[in-house]
């Protein structure tokens, strides 16, 4: 056989073997790519990789790939990728804050037809509703993060304080716990660890406070979004919050610099005694200061109305994924929820599991989680299907921040806020 003939034979053999291999590979290998915010966080991010590895090992033919990303960046990334949808991941981390915007750009596949009744029944009361918009399940809930108030039981006992149920009582507690602990003439311990920074963490807490006072902020009226800001009650409630810093001085100095990490750290280190937060702050406090175990309690946000949404978090399924990818992704989600009896991800992060079984876990039955379970039981604010949710939060943050900085009075800030929200609603209606 001469060289020319030999090369032709070998080429033909290579092509035929490649052609035979392609359909086999296509049939056997399904890749589920996941853009994940849990994976970028410590100390619980490691569990996402562990669960993916365990799933890959148990399911030959399916490969789960994790792409870690910060929750603050995820929507901007998805929005830019949505302009060339072939690059979108099969699953992406989502939350009740982000889901309306993601639905708005058409990248969220409803999970209703992918989840069997048994799986749906495994979620705790209200969780699926908390992940649903217009009656459709927008994302698979992994945890719930309602807000509640964490407090130092030891300091409350020492000062003879009882758990507040109104914001006026809350202020009394904060006043009593604001003091000069070392007697050098300077306040060094504040009652309330407010998150005063103008970012998503600060804005969410402020929104919780406003809801707990009975303010809707925006509401849907016959398909049109309308603002509920320019009224005396809103102004009074707004002023109460800003007065905690500007008048009462019960929150740490330079409050606009206090973001969630700083506020949680102040609380853990004993500079403050009360913090309004998701249950993840308990995990932060114990990690930073293990001596606090046994000294923390939590209670439902004061006020007459529910002060928090259930704040479910989880994974949304992308509309642009193939049917095989979607089916494999749903299998992974079920595995993710149920494969770890130790609940490593939830326990390390301090988040509350979304399932009935998960909510029976030992780590959430003490006083520290009592406020969170009480909040879930008492009922939360229904999910707000407003696509401009992020912009609304920014506008609220700009308003309180302007007062904290001494740039505006409460009246001026609320007036500017009402104008900004009206302009925003024009774009979203």
């Amino acid at each position: 056989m001469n060289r020319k003939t030999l090369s032709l034979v070998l080429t033909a053999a290579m092509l035929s073997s490649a052609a035979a291999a392609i359909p086999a590979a296509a049939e056997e290998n399904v890749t589920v790519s996941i853009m994940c915010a849990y994976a970028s966080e410590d100390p619980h991010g490691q569990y996402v990789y562990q669960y993916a590895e365990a799933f890959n090992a148990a399911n030959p033919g399916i490969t789960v790939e994790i792409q870690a990303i910060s929750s603050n960046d995820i929507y901007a990334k998805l929005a830019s990728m949505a302009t060339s949808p072939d690059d979108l991941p099969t699953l992406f981390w989502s939350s009740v804050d982000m889901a309306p915007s993601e639905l708005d750009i058409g990248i969220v596949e409803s999970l209703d037809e992918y989840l069997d009744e048994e799986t749906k029944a495994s979620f705790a009361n209200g969780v699926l509703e908390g992940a649903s918009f217009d009656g459709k399940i927008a994302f698979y809930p992994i945890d719930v993060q309602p807000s509640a108030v964490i407090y130092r039981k030891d300091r409350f006992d020492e000062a003879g304080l009882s758990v507040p149920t109104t914001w006026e009582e809350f202020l009394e507690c904060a006043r009593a716990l604001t003091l000069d602990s070392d007697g050098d003439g300077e306040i060094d311990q504040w009652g309330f660890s407010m998150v005063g920074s103008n970012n998503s963490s600060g804005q969410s807490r402020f929104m919780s406070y406003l809801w707990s006072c009975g303010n809707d902020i925006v509401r849907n009226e016959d398909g049109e979004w309308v603002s509920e800001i320019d009224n005396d009650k809103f102004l009074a409630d707004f002023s109460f919050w800003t007065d905690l810093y500007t008048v009462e001085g019960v929150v740490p100095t330079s409050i606009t610099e206090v973001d969630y990490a700083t506020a949680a750290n102040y609380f853990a280190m004993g500079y403050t005694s009360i913090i309004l937060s998701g249950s993840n702050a308990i995990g932060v406090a114990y990690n930073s200061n293990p001596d606090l175990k046994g000294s923390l309690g939590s209670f439902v946000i004061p006020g007459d109305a529910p002060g928090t949404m259930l704040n479910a978090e989880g994974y949304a399924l992308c509309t642009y994924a193939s049917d095989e990818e979607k089916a494999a992704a749903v299998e992974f989600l079920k595995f993710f929820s149920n494969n770890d009896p130790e609940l490593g991800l939830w326990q390390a992060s301090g988040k509350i599991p979304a399932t009935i079984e998960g909510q029976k876990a030992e780590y959430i039955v003490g006083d520290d989680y009592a406020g969170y379970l009480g909040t879930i039981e008492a009922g939360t604010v229904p999910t707000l299907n407003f696509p401009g949710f992020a912009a609304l939060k920014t506008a609220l943050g700009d308003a309180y921040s302007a007062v904290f900085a001494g740039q505006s009075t409460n009246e001026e800030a609320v007036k500017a806020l009402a104008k900004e929200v009206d302009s925003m609603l024009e774009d979203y209606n």
Partner: protein
Amino acid sequence: MSTDAVSIGTGRKKNHDNAGYAFVSPAALAMILLIIYPMAYGFYISFFNTNLVNKWNFVGFKYYLQAFTEPDFYQSLIRTFIFMFFVVAGHFFLGFLLSNLLNKKFFGRTFFRVIFTLPWLFPETVIALLFTWIMNPMYGILNAILKSLGLISSNIGWLGSGTRAFPAVIFVCIWKGYPLVMTMLLSGMQSIPADLYEAAELDGATKWKQFLHVTIPGLRPVLNTTLILDSVWWFKQYTLVYTMTGGGPGKTTDLISLSIYGTAFNDFRFGKAAAWGIIVFIICYLISKIYGVVLKDE
């Protein structure tokens, strides 16, 4: 000349033209893809209320009109001009001072030239975080030093105060950016012939007059370029200010670049942000034109 000769000549010219186009085409293509197309697309979306995916509501010049009728945009613009003025002025003050000193001969001059260039070499985020820690109201070293000197009695929030955040940010931006101006001016000074200074000295010019009548005119081309570069660079500054204050507290440090980013990627109002971006582009272009006219090298 025969007709054939003319046609042959024209043919060669055409070949030369084609070769020229072929040589510039990669650069032209890169410019079209990386500069012209994004700008044209930005201009296009500025006429829409859009999320860039499935909502494209035409709004015409609404966002351009809003920019001039609603305070958010023009207040941010004025704030940015003030910021740019003080930062660039600070750079030139320090730049002139240090380049003059470092242009003299003294022992260890190279060492000091390297030391004074260091701030320019650090990434902006690193510097921003460094100063955020230095100025932290609870455990920042700045408050500790001022307290130990007896200059303050209680901790001060530098970046959390409506009155102190803006000057604090300007200070950090001056510190970060002066080495570029210093280096440019120093290289300009080194290119001025020593004869000119000797002649001025013989004519009885003082050091100040030598600076005014020899150094400044000799630096004019460098000044022109540096001023344009520095102004436009700091007019669109984002990283340092965002990392230090996020535009706050309130809107005290909310520069136009932060406003545009926030409008696009926090509020997802891409059309409005694009309209603001186009206006800022025109302003930057005008700044360079105005400087070009004012500092024209005659």
